[in-house]
């Protein structure tokens, strides 16, 4: 039915003949693909039957001619269009447009069989095509314009999605500052938009056929860029120690792949098959590891991959763009979820510092000790109130910050120790070595170590030692204290320190705790 309607709206030549040179013999060819891709002067002729064509009264007919050749087009022996200048040498030829359409004069568009003859030359291709690119058909002028506009419109709709996603990803990168995967998503979207623009260049703007090879090379290069960036993004987003190897291997193989098949479309397709498979496998791997956002990312990658396998040839023409739109929206959502999780984590950490001092164990024991001092030694009670206020004031100030100076952090520790000394009647001492005071650290991490040492330490005198050493680009803090009861479990304090380090330095830190004889040692290594 569709074929019938198509046949009624469009008329194609029933058969073609061709000859090389003005004196050559005519030979039959089955389809336009068989036309020689040579560069010499080529003649093509065919017959188009307009008797079945559905005409809309008052509308003129048009003939479409697409090909990598300069051409002169004759309708019933009358020259009706010319693209470039056909010549018998490269110098004599001027390249014509890659596709053109011409109005068929009304008096020649009668409902019967007509002859179409094209005289062509193509000295400016710059490559040897497998089949070449050819197309001839007749339809009414308005449909011609619409059908040519359609592919451009599809491309523009898909492209707007890519550009918006890309710009938004860049904005998120600047706002979150350090999340590289947003930057990658942004460049990926723009590369995909560039690919789309390269694909849509022909219907959008047209060009002379000598530019075709340039456009095709750009498409393959951009396909490579989109494919490997997709893998890079997923590897960055869902990190694993194998990530680097997988990415480098994909980049290398994807760079070699385009040399294998002959056709331009196949080259892109091979790249997308490879990168799509790697991306899918990597996202499945992330989902298996239950990483945040992996299911959403898998949905996007999976849908794109199904579309690719479902119809590989339409993929390159237009499925690709909608699949990429969908994929990028999924990735953006997955990123946004991640950002929200980080924000929540940040808020949780802020709250945790403050809450730590609202916890009944801290608050009620402090108040009980305070009651005792008030009744027994009012002057000591006032000292305790002073140190407690100092500590609470500093905690309040620090809780909202991502970094504080070592000096501030140590001041906080000392006021906590004074406060605890008064509360528990224990002489706490913090020895500090090699800490210059100006470096930045996340708030309350030493405070947490000190607090843990107090909770678990026994005796009338507890000595803690904090040393700092910088080697090259790394700074190492070592905190030692007497090992007390109940040590060893991964407590709230440990989780707090890890969360703060993660927030401050991503994954570029280490935190180890160990017991050596009677000493509890915590080692934190961070970028200097």
């Amino acid at each position, binding site marked *: 039915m569709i074929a019938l309607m198509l046949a009624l709206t469009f008329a194609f030549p029933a058969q073609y003949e061709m000859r090389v040179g003005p004196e050559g013999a005519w030979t039959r060819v089955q389809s336009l693909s068989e036309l020689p891709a040579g560069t010499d002067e080529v003649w093509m002729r065919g017959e188009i039957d307009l008797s079945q064509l559905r005409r809309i009264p008052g509308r003129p007919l048009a003939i479409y001619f697409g090909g990598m050749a300069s051409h002169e087009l004759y309708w019933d022996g009358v020259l009706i269009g010319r693209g470039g200048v056909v010549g018998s040498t490269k110098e004599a030829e001027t390249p014509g447009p890659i596709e053109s359409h011409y109005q068929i004069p009304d008096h020649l568009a009668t409902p019967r069989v007509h002859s179409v003859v094209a005289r062509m030359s193509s000295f400016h291709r710059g490559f040897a095509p497998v089949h070449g690119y050819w197309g001839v058909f007749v339809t009414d002028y308005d449909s011609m314009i619409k059908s040519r506009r359609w592919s451009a419109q599809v491309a523009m709709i898909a492209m707007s999605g890519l550009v918006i996603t890309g710009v938004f990803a860049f904005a998120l990168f600047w706002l979150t500052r350090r999340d590289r995967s947003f930057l990658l998503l942004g460049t990926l979207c723009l590369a995909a938009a560039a690919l789309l623009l390269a694909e849509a260049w022909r219907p959008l703007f047209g060009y002379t056929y000598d530019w075709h090879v340039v456009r095709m090379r750009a498409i393959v290069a951009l396909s490579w860029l989109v494919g490997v960036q997709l893998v890079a993004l997923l590897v960055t987003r869902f990190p694993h120690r194998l990530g680097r190897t997988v990415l480098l291997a994909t980049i290398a193989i994807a760079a070699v792949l385009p040399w294998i098949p002959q056709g331009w479309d196949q080259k892109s397709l091979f790249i997308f098959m490879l990168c799509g498979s790697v991306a899918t496998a990597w996202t499945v791997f992330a989902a298996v590891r239950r990483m945040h956002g992996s299911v959403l990312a898998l949905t996007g990658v999976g849908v794109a991959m199904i579309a690719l396998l479902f119809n590989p040839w339409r993929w390159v023409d237009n499925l690709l763009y909608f699949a990429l739109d969908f994929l990028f929206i999924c990735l953006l959502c997955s990123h946004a979820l991640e950002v929200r999780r980080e924000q929540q984590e940040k808020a949780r950490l802020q709250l945790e510092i403050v809450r730590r001092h609202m916890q*009944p*164990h801290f*608050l*009620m*024991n402090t*108040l*009980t*000790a*305070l*009651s*005792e*001092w008030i*009744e027994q030694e009012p002057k000591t009670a006032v000292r305790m109130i002073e140190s407690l206020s100092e500590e609470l004031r500093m905690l309040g100030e620090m809780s909202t910050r991502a970094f504080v100076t070592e000096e501030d952090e140590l001041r906080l520790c000392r006021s906590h120790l004074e406060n605890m000394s*008064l*509360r*528990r*009647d*224990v002489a706490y001492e913090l020895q500090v070595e090699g800490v210059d005071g100006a470096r930045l650290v996340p708030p309350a991490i030493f405070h947490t170590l000190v607090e843990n040492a107090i*909770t*678990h330490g*026994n005796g009338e005198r507890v000595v803690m030692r904090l040393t700092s050493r910088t080697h090259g680009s790394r700074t190492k803090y070592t905190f030692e204290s007497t090992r*007390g*009861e*109940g040590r060893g479990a991964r*407590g709230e304090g440990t989780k707090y320190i890890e969360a703060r380090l993660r927030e401050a330095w991503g994954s570029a830190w280490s935190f180890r705790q160990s017991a050596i004889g009677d000493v509890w040692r915590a080692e934190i290594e961070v970028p200097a």
Partner: protein
Amino acid sequence: MKIAIVEDEAIVARRLERMVRAISGSSDVSIAATFDAAMALIRSRPIDLLFLDLNLNGRDGFALLEEAAAAPFQTVVVSAHHEQALRAFEYGVTDFVAKPWSEERLRLAFERTATREPQRRATTIVVRKGRELRSIAADDIVFIQGADDYSELHLADGSVHLHEKTLNALGALLPPHFLRVHRSYIANLARVRGVRASSLVMKDDTLVPVGRVYREAVRAKLGV
């Protein structure tokens, strides 16, 4: 009166000790500041009254509470964590004093221990079996028989467990439907099937004797 205090915060312990001495007039007050010392103190009887903090150097003190619950003496929990009160009472502590406390509040705790009137009744009884502690739901108890300075818990499954607390002490901790029916017996009225002239027939067909002086009270309580 031998009083033990388990508290890891020195000043808090000092305050508690000072007040305990003043209120009780006792000079025999010992203090344990660590979990292990506390366990040793609780196990080294005799103690008459224990003041117990449930959070020692970051360790959960409920293991200490179970140990204390199986012991003959009364326990008062002194804690910063008010939300632990219900669970503590389930184990049969006599009082729960929240930090910080006043001297008046501590006096009230002493009154409750003196009159054996806990603020809330226990729902769990902890018994010692050799080295092991075992928690028994009060509802599983059919009746309790008193011996000299210990008690025998008779459970619905037929098992019998010894408890170091006296019949009087257990009777004070358990909910009101555990009624004294005899000089040497407490019966769980929720498990009574019938009433005879001088005994109760329990649901498992065991007979619990009813003393002459308790008869009226038992009948009134059962509504027969």
